[in-house]
């Protein structure tokens, strides 16, 4: 990433002190284009769909549903899905239920560190409309205000089958190439950032976590 701090294409990073600003990259992310050769892009999409690595980050009670998927009964490794402990290497972020403001900050950081193309599955009613925490002072009510969601699974909590079905549908969408949450995020970055900063009041991280 460019270290050029004067160019137009930079983020403000106003949440950081002058010293810290030097430690972080301030480049503005750009939407990426598909490969110009269609066959290559199709092959890449096929590979992406068949090798989904899930970030092991459970945010709420729904994420307990991920465990049965890994074990003998459902065994998602059959479909090329594996858990990854680090955001750098994973491509799917499963928002496992309610998202408190404190968690939201970590989710944004992790999501931005993931390498595109990246996908978000929002699990449970909580990220969709607040669920049973709709009147909580501490959990957000609409997750898609803050990050782009590719697939919603409703229920409180959804059965593992429902999650499996969502993953299968996500795969189909990736194969035909219309799962571009990461690009949507980058294109509407200012809108998303405004929403994020509205609820995260102590914004003490870079505007985009490279």
């Amino acid at each position, binding site marked *: 990433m460019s270290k050029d701090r004067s160019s137009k294409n930079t983020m403000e990073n106003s949440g950081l002190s002058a010293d810290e600003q030097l430690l972080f990259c301030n480049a503005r992310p750009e939407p990426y284009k598909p490969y110009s050769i269609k066959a290559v892009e199709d092959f890449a999409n096929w*590979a992406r769909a068949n090798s989904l690595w899930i970030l092991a980050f459970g945010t709420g009670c729904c994420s307990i549903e991920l465990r049965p998927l890994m074990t003998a009964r459902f065994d998602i*490794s059959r479909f090329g899905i594996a858990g990854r402990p680090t955001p*750098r290497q994973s491509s799917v972020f499963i928002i496992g239920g309610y998202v408190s403001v404190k968690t939201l900050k970590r989710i944004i950081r992790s999501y931005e560190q993931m390498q595109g193309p990246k996908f978000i599955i929002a699990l449970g009613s909580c990220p969709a409309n607040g669920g049973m925490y709709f009147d909580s002072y501490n959990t957000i009510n609409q997750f898609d205000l803050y990050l782009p969601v590719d697939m919603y699974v409703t229920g409180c909590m959804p059965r593992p089958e429902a999650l499996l079905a969502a993953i299968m549908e996500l795969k189909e969408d990736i194969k035909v190439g219309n799962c571009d949450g990461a690009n949507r995020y980058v294109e509407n970055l200012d809108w998303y950032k405004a929403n994020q900063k509205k609820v995260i009041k102590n914004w003490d991280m870079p505007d985009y976590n490279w």
Partner: protein
Amino acid sequence: MIYASMSEWFGRVGNFGLTLLIVTVYGLLVGALIERIIAKVQGRVGIPYSQPFINIAKTFFKRTAVSHGIMFYLGPVFRIAGGIGTLAFIPVIYGSEMFSNFSMAGDLFLVIYFMFFGQLGMALGAGESGHPYSAIGIARGLSQMTAYEVPFALAVISIVIQYDTLSITEIVAAQQGGWQNWTVITNWVATLAAMLAFLGMTGYSPFDIFLAPQEIPIGPPTEFHSAYLSFLQINRALFGATKLVLFMNLFFGGATGWVELMIKTLLIYMVAIVVGVAFPRFRVDQGIRFFFKIPTLIGIMSIVYVQMVLA
């Protein structure tokens, strides 16, 4: 080694490329097979055989890649150079001109050097990423490496004394003519020490603390992603298979054909797997103590054995 002509040199490079391809694909398939076996033990179906290849394609086709500096690029490059370098000096198939690669008189030491070159390169690259867990993983990995190096080096010295040569080809040649000539029979003490070191080398439990996916998110490669990661994945398969070939050559009589090679290496690999599924993980200090105790003693004994019994 003097080559008669340019074309012979190119031929050798081409042959080596072919070996490289076969060994890498074989390594990936073995990896998938092992995954499937472990899955079966756990009552699961497991990944398809094509999964490692798809994973590599996927990581390669990632659209973005963040860099952390020049050493960060070089880490995976050094790592894969270590893998290729190791393979380059190992004669893969005994008696086959085509698949003996660049093996020569002193290749054993070169191979041992290359095996650790990759690890050091990786340590530099992962250190550059600045991730604290990478640093922890490297510290653990390198200290464990220092520990299992000792019995392995002792075992290698022992067989070097036994066969009085530093050439892997000659060591394999000396083991031909039936299983009773294999090092595992003639010098079982050295083999035992080396196999114990092998457990540490493969990085399966109980010696997988430096990877520890849950505690220190997979250790050294934490920050590596996209194409860097696909290099590491390829190297993991290549290097794993290369180590197996080396062990087969040194201790189990080498192979005269690909089928023999595959059966033998798979069986050697199984040793690590069986130990791995049966034993829980050592802490790093326990692991180091383990290697410095019994395996090192066995290693020293193997040298004594060679001097007293075989001489």
